[in-house]
């Protein structure tokens, strides 16, 4: 591994200064469960690593209707918080299956987003919750929708000197429900062959006011099944409509065949997982009315 220096950041400016100085030869360290693996495999080299676990602003976790999660907050703090688990079950679905307990002690949503892997387990959930990513940089803060954050395999909107500070989820409307499910050959310690997050907002008339469907591991980035979403809006959330939406979601998937799965397998799984997560999201939406 190429030798690098370590900085335990105490302030946002300290982080942006180090990142700006080294450009793409410096990165933030939160859980490190992707960063250290990639460094060791020589995917890239760094001269400096900035630890943001020591930066208070990146470790906030507050729920007051809306949810603010610092980018260094590890998964276990999210799913072990009873209130958050009750308010945002769709987020907990993803947070509780990243790797095993050891990984969940360190890995967090922030790292999952910045690693920008197509099969990231927590990003689809953020998308269907209409999450906002707060980015801090040398010229101050800016906000980007989670849906737009990842731009390619291991690529995202972060520019030189910028880092992800926190993620904000708006207060869910009444009648909002969300769920995430992935398929893996093993029950734990695995990586998604396909993953789907769905959210449904029921209107007063019981019809679908809004629907979001985000797919993982079936395109270079997490991708939304727009046609399937549009189809559902305004309709009764019947099993038949959900099945039709699942079919449309399959068409949004552009998977490849690799060691983890084939194109046909992934497309088929997107159909199955969309139906299951829409059904679960609907259940949670009804409870939230």
């Amino acid at each position: 591994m190429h030798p690098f220096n370590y900085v335990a950041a105490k302030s946002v400016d300290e982080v942006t200064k180090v990142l700006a100085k080294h450009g793409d030869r410096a990165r933030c360290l939160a859980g490190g469960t992707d960063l250290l693996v990639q460094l060791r495999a020589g995917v890239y080299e760094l001269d400096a690593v900035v630890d943001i676990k020591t930066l208070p602003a990146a470790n906030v976790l507050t729920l007051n209707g809306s949810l603010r999660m610092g980018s260094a907050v590890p998964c276990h703090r999210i799913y072990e918080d009873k209130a958050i688990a009750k308010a945002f079950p769709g987020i907990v679905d993803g947070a509780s299956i990243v790797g095993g307990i050891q990984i969940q002690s360190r890995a967090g949503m922030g790292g999952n987003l910045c690693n920008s892997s197509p099969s990231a387990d927590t990003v689809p959930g953020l998308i269907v919750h209409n999450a906002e990513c707060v980015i801090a940089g040398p010229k101050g803060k800016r906000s980007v929708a989670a849906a737009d954050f990842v731009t390619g395999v291991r690529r995202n909107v972060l520019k030189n000197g910028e880092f992800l500070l926190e993620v904000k989820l708006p207060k869910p409307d009444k009648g909002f429900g969300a769920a995430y499910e992935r398929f893996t050959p093993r029950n734990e310690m695995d990586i998604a062959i396909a993953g789907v997050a769905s959210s449904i907002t029921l209107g007063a008339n019981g019809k679908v006011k809004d629907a979001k469907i985000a797919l993982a591991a079936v395109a270079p980035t997490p991708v939304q099944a727009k046609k399937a979403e549009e189809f559902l809006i305004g309709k009764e959330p019947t099993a038949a409509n959900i099945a039709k939406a699942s079919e449309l979601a399959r068409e949004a998937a552009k998977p490849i065949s690799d060691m983890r799965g084939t194109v046909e397998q992934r497309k088929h799984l997107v159909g199955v997982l969309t139906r299951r997560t829409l059904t679960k999201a609907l259940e949670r939406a009804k409870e939230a009315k």
Partner: protein
Amino acid sequence: MVEKVHVRTTLNGEPTEFLVYPYQSLLETLREVIGLTGTKEGCNDGNCGACTVQVDDRIVDSCLVLGVEVEGKKVTTVEGLATPAGLHPLQQAFLEEASLQCGICTPGFLVASKALLDREPKADEHRIRHWLAGNLCRCTGYDKIIRAVQKVGATSKPARATAAQATAKRRPAGARK
């Protein structure tokens, strides 16, 4: 040029300081710098749990933690489970239940199981399997490991002070969630 960093931490209840390069993992620090070889390397990329240690109150893969990150923290390794008073009940149970064959994964399983029973003494078989899924074993098929953890959980009195606590200076109650 990258210099070694001076790190102060608490290791198995004792203040410990060392010099380490920032890029050296906690696993490499424990084994090569401090010389405690009880924590084992199985894959060095967070997929097998053989290097599991406890940092503060969470179990982590020490291969995916930097040595410099434990500044000011409390690190517990397999060498810290037994105390002058004797083996930790899990260590005794692993021996009685033949829960190890080659033993390379045993340190990781012991640290992980202790962390579980410290927070959920009455964990059932599914919960134990879920908690230990990050620790791979290739010899035992897991059966006798799960039974040993169940046995200690069943016999542990709920508010029992674990052996490790008995020796650590009296920590403020509730210091651990």
